[in-house]
C-alpha cells in the first residue's frame, strides 16, 4: 500500500515542482505529507523490524528535519520542521516497542485491537491463560520469581515470533489473538518487575 503521490506538487516557497520534502530548486523545507509511520522513517511496513535499523532510520530522519537544522530559517520553514520532527518522534515511539507496533499495524488494517475500541475481549482460551499466569504470579515466593521471569521472557519471544509470522501471512485474526496475548504478557512483565525490584524510593 503506502501513500502514492498522484499529482505533481509544487514548492511551498518557490512554486517549482518538487519530489522531496526539501525543494530541489530553492532548498526550502516543505510541510510534512500524510505518511504512515513506516513510510515516514523510510521502512517497509512489516511487524518484523530490526531495532538498530529503526534507530538508524530515526536518527537519519531527525538529522534532516529537526528544528535545530532550521534555526536560522524563516518562520514558515521553522514551523514545518517542528511538524516533521513531531511526526518522526511519533513514528519512532509507536514502532519502537512490539505492542504499540502491532496495535498500530492492526489499526491501519482497519482492525483495531479489541479493548481499544470499547469492545470486550471474547477469547475464552486467552482469558484462561491470563488467569493462570496471574495466579502463578500471585502465588510466587521471592525465590520463584527468576524462574517465572525466564518463563515469561520465553513466552514474550515466542509471541513476537508468532506476531511476525501472522503479519507476514496477512493472518489478521491470528495477529489480533497474539497482540492480545502480548498485551497481557507485557502487563504481567511489568508487575513481575515491580514485585522483584520495588521502585527505588528516594530518601
Amino acid at each position: 500500500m503506502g501513500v502514492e503521490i498522484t499529482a505533481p506538487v509544487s514548492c511551498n516557497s518557490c512554486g517549482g515542482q518538487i519530489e522531496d520534502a526539501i525543494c530541489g530548486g530553492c532548498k526550502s523545507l516543505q510541510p510534512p505529507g500524510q505518511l504512515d509511520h513506516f513510510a515516514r522513517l523510510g521502512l517497509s511496513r512489516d511487524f518484523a523490524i530490526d531495532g538498530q535499523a529503526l534507530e538508524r532510520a530515526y536518527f537519519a530522519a531527525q538529522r534532516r528535519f529537526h528544528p535545530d537544522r532550521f534555526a536560522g530559517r524563516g518562520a514558515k520553514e521553522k514551523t514545518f520542521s517542528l511538524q516533521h520532527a513531531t511526526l518522526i518522534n511519533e513514528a519512532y515511539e509507536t514502532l519502537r516497542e512490539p505492542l504499540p507496533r502491532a496495535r498500530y499495524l492492526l489499526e491501519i488494517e482497519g482492525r483495531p485491537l479489541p479493548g481499544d475500541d470499547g469492545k470486550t475481549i471474547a477469547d475464552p482460551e486467552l482469558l484462561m491463560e491470563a488467569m493462570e499466569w496471574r495466579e502463578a504470579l500471585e502465588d510466587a515466593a521471592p525465590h520463584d520469581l527468576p524462574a517465572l521471569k525466564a518463563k515469561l521472557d520465553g513466552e514474550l519471544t515466542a509471541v513476537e515470533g508468532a506476531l511476525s509470522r501472522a503479519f507476514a501471512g496477512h493472518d489478521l485474526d491470528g495477529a489480533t489473538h497474539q497482540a492480545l496475548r502480548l498485551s497481557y504478557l507485557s502487563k504481567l512483565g511489568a508487575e513481575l518487575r515491580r514485585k522483584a525490584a520495588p521502585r527505588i524510593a528516594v530518601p
Partner: protein
Amino acid sequence: MLLDIYEPGETPLPHAGDSDRAAVGIDLGTTNSLVAVSVNGRPEILRDALGDGIVPSVVAYLEGDDEPVVGRVATRILEQEPELVVASVKRLMGRGTGDVASVGGHLAQKIRDDGQGGMVRLDVGGRIVSPVEVSGEILRTLRQRAELVLGKTVDQAVITVPAYFDDAARTATRDAARLAGIEVLRLVNEPTAAALAYGLDQGAEGLYAIYDLGGGTFDVSLLKLEKGVFQVLATGGDAALGGDDFDRALAEQLIQERGGGIAAGDVKPVLAAARRAKEALTEADTTTLDLEFGSRATRHTVTRAGFDALIAPLVARTIAAAKAVLQDAGVGPGELSGVVLVGGSTRVPLVRAEVTALFGREPLSDIDPDEVVALGAALQAEALTIGSDTLLLDVVPLSLGLETMGGLIEKVIPRNTPIPVSRAQDFTTYQDGQTAMAIHVVQGEREMVEQNRSLARFVLAGIPAMVAGAARIRVTFTVDADGLLTVSAREALTGVEARVEVKPTYGLTDDEMTGMLRASLENARADVVTRLLAEARVDGRRLILALDAALAVDGDLLSAEERAAIEGAKSALETAMTGDDREAVVAATEALEAAGRPFAERRMDRNIRRALSGVDVSRLESRLQAG
C-alpha cells in the same frame, strides 16, 4: 578564489560569514553565570581583563542609580547593604507570589503581592523588579562582556536551563533574554550541554550518565551518544539539593560546637566560613577556621572524615536519584560507557567516591565542572548558526496532564517522551446540558491534582447543550524543541476551539517541587489507593446526579415508601462519600443502584408507552391526510 563545497542541506546559513556578529552560549546559573563562544568547534570561556570567567549571578540596585550593578561588585555590596542586592534569583524564575514563602529565606527583599496571583515582584530598596528583569540584567552583563571581548555584536545565544526546569521557568528564561536584547536560538538542558562539551571533544559513543551537582540544584541525565546524536533517554534529580546544603550542614555543626545561639545577621559569615572549609577539604585532610561573633571568638578544626559524615545523607539522596533514572531507562550501572561530572559541588571528594562506587568507574572530570555547561552551550550556538552534524534529542522532564473528575490526573505526555511532541486525548462532558469545560493543565508525577504543579487553567466555552457524555472534546498538548508547551482544546461536533500558550499562573517553589518528586516515588502505592477512592466517589456522584434528574421527571411513579427507601440509600451513599473507605463507597453505590432498579424499570415502561402513544389521534389523522 576557492569555492567551498558543502554537503547538501549543510550550506552555511546567510550570516555565518557575517564577521561582525556572533552567537554565544550562556550558562545562567543560580550562583554563577558564564558566557562562551565557539569557533570551528573549539569553545572558549569569555573572561574579563583579569582572566576571570565567572560572573556571580548577583544584581545590586543602588539608590539614585538607574543602571544596576552585576557580578563581583554586587557581591561586595551584598555584605554591606543586603537589602539592595538580589542573589539566587534563578530559584524564583516562573514562580508566583503564592509559592515563594520557603525560598524567601534566601532573599533580603520583601516580596510584593499584587493580589492577582501573578508573577513574584521584589521590593529592592523601594524599586519594584521581577525575577525576569533581574535575570535580564545578568544576561545583559554577559552580553556586554561578550561584545567587549569579541568586538562584535552579540544578539543570539543558546541559554542553558536545568533539565528539571518546568514550563513556567523556561518561559521566564526566554522572556529575560528578550529583555537583554538576546534572541534565544535554543534553550538547552544543562546536562545535555555538558555532554556536548565532552562528546565533541572526544568523539565518544555509548551510554553516558551526567551527574550535575550545583550550588542549589541536582540533575542527573542518561544520554546515548552515537555518531553526533545526543539522545536523552531519561532525566531526574532534585531541584533543591546542592553544595549550599553542604555549607549549611557544616555551619550548623560549627554553631553547635560553640554552644549554640546565633543572631540572624551572623548567619552569612558562618556560612561563608563553612564554604571555605569545604573547599579547603577538597585537597586537605583537615582544616581550621576562626569564628568571631556574639562577642566571642572560637577556633574549630574540621576533618575530612567529620565533614563526610555530615554530608553523607545528602550525597546518598543524589545516588538514589541516579539509581532511579537508571531504572527508568532500564539500564544497569555496568552498561555505561562513562560518567560526566558537572557543577562545582562535584569537587567534593565524597561525591566523587560515591559516584565512582555507584557506576564502578572513575568519572570524567577533565573539563572544569564550572565551565563545562557554558562550553557545551557555545558549541550548540555554533551548530545552530553555522551548521553542524550534531543533533540533540531531548525529552519532557516531568509528565504533563489534565485534571479530570474528582481531582484525578490524566497524563497526556509521560515524562521522558522525546520532544518535539504532540499528543491528543478525548474528553467528554459530565453533566447534561454542560456548555463549558474547564481545562486545568498540570505537570508532575503524582496521581492527584493538588500534589502536582498547576501550569495553566482555561475554559472551552460554547459547547452546544447535549446529554452528558455526548460531546467529544479533543485536547492537544504540543511541546516544541525548547520544551515549551501549548495546549489547545476543540469540540469535534461544532469545531469550537480554545488555545493557550502556557504562561505561569501560579506555581510552587523548588522545595515543593522536590517534595513532590520525592513523594511521587515514595507514595506510588498510596496514590493508587487515593485514585481508586476518588474514582469510587466519581461513580457515586454520577449515580446520584442521574437519579435526581430522573426523580424530578418521573417521581410520581414511586409510592411514598419506595421514595423514602431511595432517599435513604442516597443519603447513606452521600455519607460514605465523605469518608475515606473505598469499599464503603462502592457498597453504598451498589445499594442505591439496587434500590433504584424498580424505579428505573417503571420509567422505561412509561417511556415506551409515551413513545407509542405520544401522538394523539387527531394529529395522527391530520398527518395521514397530509401524507
